[in-house]
């Protein structure tokens, strides 16, 4: 039962991330929404799986999977956003500040 609650929460977060990736205007903001929501959502689903299987071989396997998922998604987001900036995509027209431009010179 408790696993179902976790999974439901996770899917709600995933849904939010999905709406974000469709609605937001430029690449940077899409990455913002998507990474956070989807990572937390999937971690939550995996936690639900841990509670479902209990302390067994499957449960510990999922416990191992959570840090891998966490690091993979955050580092992936970081590398992607840096790559996007170097690729030459401009910040959206709503943006107000850009300190990184100076640092690259």
């Amino acid at each position, binding site marked *: 039962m408790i696993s179902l609650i976790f999974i439901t929460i996770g899917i709600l977060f995933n849904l939010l991330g999905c709406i974000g990736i469709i609605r937001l205007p430029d690449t940077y903001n899409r990455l913002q929404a998507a990474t956070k929501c989807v990572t937390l959502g999937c971690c939550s689903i995996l936690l*639900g799986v841990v509670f479902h299987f209990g302390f067994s071989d499957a449960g510990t396997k999922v416990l191992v999977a959570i840090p*891998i998922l966490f690091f*993979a*998604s955050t580092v*992936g987001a970081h590398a992607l956003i840096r790559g*996007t900036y170097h690729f030459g995509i401009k910040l959206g027209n709503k943006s107000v500040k850009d300190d990184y431009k100076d640092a690259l010179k």
Partner: protein
Amino acid sequence: MSNYLNILLYIQIGISVVCMYRIIRGPTIPDRMVGADIFGILVVGICAIISIQTERSFILDIGIAWIILSFIGTLTLAKYLTGKKLNE
């Protein structure tokens, strides 16, 4: 219980299909890559739910392998985006 899980599974699959929209539509290359990255993470969720549904734990193995390969793919594409060589 299993009915409810089924509904959740369909919602999750629907979310990843919507992600496909960004991969196909995305106006620039980085947009498509963001879509692919997010899609890779969502698949792990699908694997987890299926493993509960069928009570077979080896599907989790597939999920972990998927996230690892997706991570390597994302890093490689990000490396390509920065446009630098291996040793820069």
